């Protein structure tokens, strides 16, 4: 028995070392990006790579205050918040409908929702462009919000369904015996008990919208240009200012990572609930 315990223990330490090594390796590109963003042009060009150097914030200053990336940040934020509001409202209602009621064709309708998440964005974006021209909606926030809300609603439905499954039916039923309507029970009990899930889902919707490239590429114009398109259009000829580009990259991903960290516990639960339940 003791040898078994000892060997289990040794396996545990091996696994710990292995996991830290893998995750460490995974983070090398992130560290390198952060470092490059803090380098001068000359430092970013020098080889062999310098891992230790005197950092400067010049790249960030240039990107945010001279190249006008602040505007793209604002556009991205407006679209992401709008998308999240629409997707959470529609998605949590639908998720509740799928989770609490049994009827013929339920599985088929749910598959339709999954498809809405899985159909390539570019497939919808091209015809949407032509329709937006006719409706005079091109280069408007509302167009981007509506388009982002498609995959976000589908995803929110999938994720919230798992969180509603955790809410005991009995609590709702006793509320309804006390005179609450179905909608009342949903709003005052289920939604409240699933609040952490709602927050995690909101963060996912924010991040999806924030990161979206295809819709923004086709449908955004000068006024509504979001961050991904601005990032994607950065030219990279020989001798390019990689420090500046990496600073933009950092500005683009820091908000998502910070959000993810804040709700980490619920994010992982939501993600994986949806997957295993």
């Amino acid at each position, binding site marked *: 028995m003791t040898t078994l315990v000892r060997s289990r223990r040794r396996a545990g330490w091996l696994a710990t070392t292995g996991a830290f090594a893998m995750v460490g390796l995974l983070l090398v590109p992130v560290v390198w990006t952060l470092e490059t963003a803090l380098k001068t042009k000359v430092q970013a060009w020098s080889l062999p790579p310098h891992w230790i150097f005197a950092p400067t914030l010049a790249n960030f200053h240039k990107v945010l205050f001279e190249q006008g990336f602040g505007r793209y940040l604002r556009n991205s934020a407006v679209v992401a918040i709008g998308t999240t509001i629409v997707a959470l409202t529609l998605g949590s209602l639908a998720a509740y*409908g799928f989770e609490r009621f049994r009827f013929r064709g339920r599985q088929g309708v749910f598959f339709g929702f999954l498809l809405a998440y899985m159909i390539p964005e570019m497939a919808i974006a091209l015809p949407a462009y032509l329709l937006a021209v006719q409706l005079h909606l091109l280069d408007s926030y509302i167009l981007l919000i509506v388009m982002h809300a498609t995959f976000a609603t589908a995803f929110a439905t999938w994720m919230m369904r798992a969180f509603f499954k955790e809410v005991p039916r009995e609590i709702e039923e006793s509320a309804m015996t006390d005179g609450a309507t179905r909608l009342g029970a949903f709003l005052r009990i289920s939604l409240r008990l699933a609040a952490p899930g709602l927050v995690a889902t909101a963060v996912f919707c924010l991040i999806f919208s*924030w990161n979206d490239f295809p819709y923004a590429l086709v449908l955004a114009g000068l006024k509504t240009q979001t961050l991904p398109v601005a990032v994607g259009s950065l030219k990279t000829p020989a001798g390019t200012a990689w420090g500046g580009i990496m600073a933009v990259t950092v500005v683009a991903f820091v908000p998502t990572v910070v959000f993810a960290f804040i709700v980490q516990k619920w994010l992982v639960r939501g993600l994986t609930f949806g997957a295993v339940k």
Partner: protein
Amino acid sequence: MNQILKRGAPARSGRRSFVARHKEALSGLAFIAPAAGFLIIVMGYPIVYLVLHSFNKENFANPDAGATFIGLGNYASLLQNHEFWQSTRTTALIVVFAVALEFLLGLLLALLLQRVLAGRRVLIALMLIPSMMMPIAVGLMWRYMLDDTYGMVSYYLSRLGLTGTDGLVKGSILGTSHSALAAIVVTDVWEWTPFMALILLAGLQSLPTDPFEAAAVDGASLWQEFRHVTMPLLRPAVTVALLIRIADAMRILDIVFSMTNGGPANATQTTQLYTYRTGFEQFNIGLAFAQVVLVVSATIVVCALIFRQVAGDRVAR
């Protein structure tokens, strides 16, 4: 499936009204209707539009002028189009290699994490970083690291003799077709392996303990336990993880756009990039739509096949 049908079938009663008989279904649909209506209008209309217009010869730059109905003409010319087949092959290669590697590495990472003695929370938090990053920025990041002149990874690879005149890759990494494709796969694997690992870890943690105890009593080796106990039980989590990743990888665009922009010589042009270029750069809208119809049909078939597995797994439990 049968179970659901049986439960869903309302009891026959002549006197009760339609609403009373279908109360369950109607209440459920009432909750689903706003989202379903939204999706049908916002996605359904463009889909109908693109299917109808895929039979036309049309110019994107001037959509109102000259739309000529040419039947299956666009489809016929697609099937003879080298670029179409090349983009399909490229995408298939990326899906197969990227998802396979993500699954294997993700499973390894999940198995390690399950046995980790300390620091699991920190590891999971750090693992979220790649998947939360903007894919277009991820592509840019790897492009910089693989840059011929200034790239950190290129530098170490050439020091190891893997690139350069005597190495595996003679020219620049992103300028050579095979290595550019491999670089895109590596980037995708980097971004999504942790995500795969998290789903599989959740699957592992939700498994019942009895079968493992039984296997231990029977003196199963670690490999036997993994092969005959862990893997079969983990199947539902595996299917879901694969469903998400395959569907995502089939529409890969962002990383390719910022890393290679389809180059060199269209070697890394994926189906989505081909759609964009045909429609938005060559303005050949009918051809672009025909290609979208074919690609989306393929996506639906693949997702439906996997979804049936998922649904089957759920009913079985």
